């Protein structure tokens, strides 16, 4: 039996790896044979996630606040020195807070761009330096359908997610020379605590537009794992919409 998504022997780095899609990616990557390193702020949740992974003793966590962009270079160098070069990277860290326009202040916009944009750009930049990535490595960033058509209150969130997509092609081109791939996934509504916060008081008709239903976190993660694997070694600079049909139903 063959498994084209096998990740045995690969080292995968995941930001936001202690909750939501990031946590599911970490668990699934371990099941596919990878050595996984997760980065997030909350030590308790990080430890919990490592326990949920296959071969926990091989997996590692680093408690770090990605808002501290000046410290990312040090973090990445420490991780690769202690754990080896990376074969995969997933930027799953993010915040989904919605705000109406009058409260979309510079302070809030900066907060959204810091985690979605600056943390991604800086982590990818640092990974590209000093041989921190193995040849053929795959980088994946978690975007959102809100990057193209956000719902009410998603102005700053959608703009920050869209900035990821502008970053994609030039970097994929530059790193492509080293056989490194870089892709983004635009998710619709995925069953996570973050989405729950958004949906709790939101318009539930939104979910009707996503006619395949709410996307399970593990199902969402499987698409990331596909992009990390050699099964799609010729996919790069792509934005995959995983929206359960969202936007395709008229009336």
């Amino acid at each position, binding site marked *: 039996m063959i498994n084209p998504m096998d990740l045995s022997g690969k080292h995968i780095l995941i930001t936001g790896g202690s909750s939501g899609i990031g946590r599911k990616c970490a668990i699934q990557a371990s099941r596919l044979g990878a050595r996984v390193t997760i980065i997030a702020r909350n030590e308790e949740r990080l430890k919990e996630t490592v326990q949920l992974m296959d071969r926990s003793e091989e997996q590692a966590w680093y408690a770090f606040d990605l808002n501290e962009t000046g410290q990312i270079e040090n973090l990445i160098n420490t991780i690769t020195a202690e754990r080896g070069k990376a074969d995969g990277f997933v930027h799953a860290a993010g915040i989904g807070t919605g705000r*109406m326009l009058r*409260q979309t*202040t510079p302070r809030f916009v900066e907060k959204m761009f810091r985690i979605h944009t600056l943390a991604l750009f800086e982590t990818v930049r640092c990974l590209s330096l000093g041989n921190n990535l193995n040849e053929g490595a795959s980088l994946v960033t978690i975007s959102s359908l809100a990057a193209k058509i956000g719902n*009410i209150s998603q102005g700053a969130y959608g703009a920050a997610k869209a900035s990821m997509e502008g970053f994609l092609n030039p970097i994929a081109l530059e790193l492509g020379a080293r056989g490194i791939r870089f892709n983004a996934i635009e998710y619709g509504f995925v069953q996570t605590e973050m989405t*729950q916060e958004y949906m*709790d*008081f939101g*318009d539930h008709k939104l979910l009707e537009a996503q006619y395949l239903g709410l996307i399970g976190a593990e199902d969402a993660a499987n698409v990331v794992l596909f992009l990390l694997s050699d099964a799609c070694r010729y996919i790069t600079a792509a934005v995959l919409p995983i929206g359960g049909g969202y936007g395709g139903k008229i009336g």
Partner: protein
Amino acid sequence: MTNEEKLELLEEVMEMDPGTLKPEMALENLEEWNSIAVISFIAMVDDEFDKVIKSAVIKEQKTVADLMALMEEE
């Protein structure tokens, strides 16, 4: 922050005229307490009190006074 100032902030969140909101009012009877007001309330508490309130906590609140009680720094 005084109770009057808190009520002013809540009136802004619910887009109501100044002086119309009273602490004893039940949230379920307030048409203005809708999903947009909740989003605005979470943002206001974050800005003014540096505190992030979960939607589950907001769901438990019954009156305007309950919301005012959440408007404190941790």
